[in-house]
């Protein structure tokens, strides 16, 4: 279970949020809302452990994530604004490397299946630089089908996705939550999943 306690977040000299509290339980999805510049990305970066906050705590199973960084990292998938894809590697190589770096055993058949699901199977041996924005996004999301981790932190995962891919991701989210996964994401539209699992959190003063 993820808890955020009395968090204060600043960007430069300006205060984005103070005394922010939140908790996320198994099988729950939090949809962060807020206008541009309200600190959605900053918050996600703090929760994932990429940035540190001035005051307040982020707890994973009641342990401060800063004291158990590696244990926490191995429970989490963070997909940021940038798709984290190397242009000079092929689609398949990109996926393989990102899995291997996270200590996941690579099974080439499962990899190809996942690429099939996200619709990149035919492009698997092309260098990633020829992919469109939407295809890059699909490639970075492909990890969600291969790597079993309880906590997903997704920054604008629906960006640049077409209708069909949108639906695909929503289905995958549903699956993840039903098998008692957790997810926190930002998005301009409310993801179309079971309303019982969804919690809306608004940022901005």
């Amino acid at each position, binding site marked *: 279970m993820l808890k955020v306690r009395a968090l204060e977040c600043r960007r430069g000299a300006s205060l984005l949020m103070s005394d922010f509290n939140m908790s996320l339980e198994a099988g729950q999805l939090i949809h962060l809302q807020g206008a541009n510049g309200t600190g959605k990305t900053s918050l996600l970066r703090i929760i994932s452990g*990429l940035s540190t906050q001035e005051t307040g705590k982020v707890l994973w199973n009641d342990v401060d994530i800063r004291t158990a960084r590696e*244990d926490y990292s191995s429970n989490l998938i963070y997909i940021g*604004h*940038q798709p*984290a*894809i*190397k242009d000079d*590697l092929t689609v398949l190589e990109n996926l393989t490397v990102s899995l*291997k770096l996270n200590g996941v055993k690579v099974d080439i058949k499962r990899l190809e299946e996942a690429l099939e699901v996200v619709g990149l199977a035919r492009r698997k041996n092309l260098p990633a630089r020829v992919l469109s924005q939407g295809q890059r996004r699909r490639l970075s999301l492909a990890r969600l089908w291969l790597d079993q981790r309880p906590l997903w932190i997704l920054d604008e995962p629906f960006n640049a996705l077409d209708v069909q891919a949108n639906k695909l991701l929503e289905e995958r989210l549903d699956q993840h939550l039903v098998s008692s996964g957790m997810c926190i994401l930002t998005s301009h539209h409310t993801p179309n999943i079971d309303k019982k699992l969804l919690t809306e959190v608004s940022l901005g003063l």
Partner: protein
Amino acid sequence: MKIAGILQALLWRDIKLAMRRQSDVVATLFFFVVAVSLFPLGIGSAPSLMHAIGPGVIWVAALLSSMLSLNRLFSSDYADGTLEQLLLVPMPLTLILAIKIFAHWIVAGLPLVILAPILGLQFDMGAKDIGILVLSLILGTPLLSLIGAIGAALILGMRGGGVLLAILVLPLYIPVLIFGAGAVTASVNGISPEGALSLIAAMLTLGVVFAPFAAAVALRISLE
């Protein structure tokens, strides 16, 4: 076993990426050769002069070209977001950076070592002196990558960071230059280079232990 697998994957990735961008590697090497060749043209080529300046010139050029390639260490990973993912790899960042620095040395430092004997011949060095030159570079260039990594991490993502990187890193390179070039100069003058070489080796040991850690601290600060 899992740790080894992760580190191996990272090493493979970085070397593969460099191989797919060979022009960068070749350009750095070419810079090394050009920079070395400029000195005789500026100073003159009397044999006694060549003996006196050769070690220093080759070492200075090696230092500058290894600095030129430092930008590549983090900046492209930073630009496409993969650096964030490396920070989230369930493993100490220090270890990750140690591997990245090692990979950087293989693609940016090792080629200099391999090319150095040819440049040594241009300065009329004997076989023994060339041997010492290669040895001093083998010990010294990893140190350049290690120290440089700290600087590269500090200036990550800054506009016009290249010049600043030079200002930060070059003064810290001075001991490496002194002992590296000093070892070869000593050998050319018929003095034992052992002292200087063992001092570089000692610094390299210190560097391997502390530099990745310092670079990790710097990187976390820069990525906030």
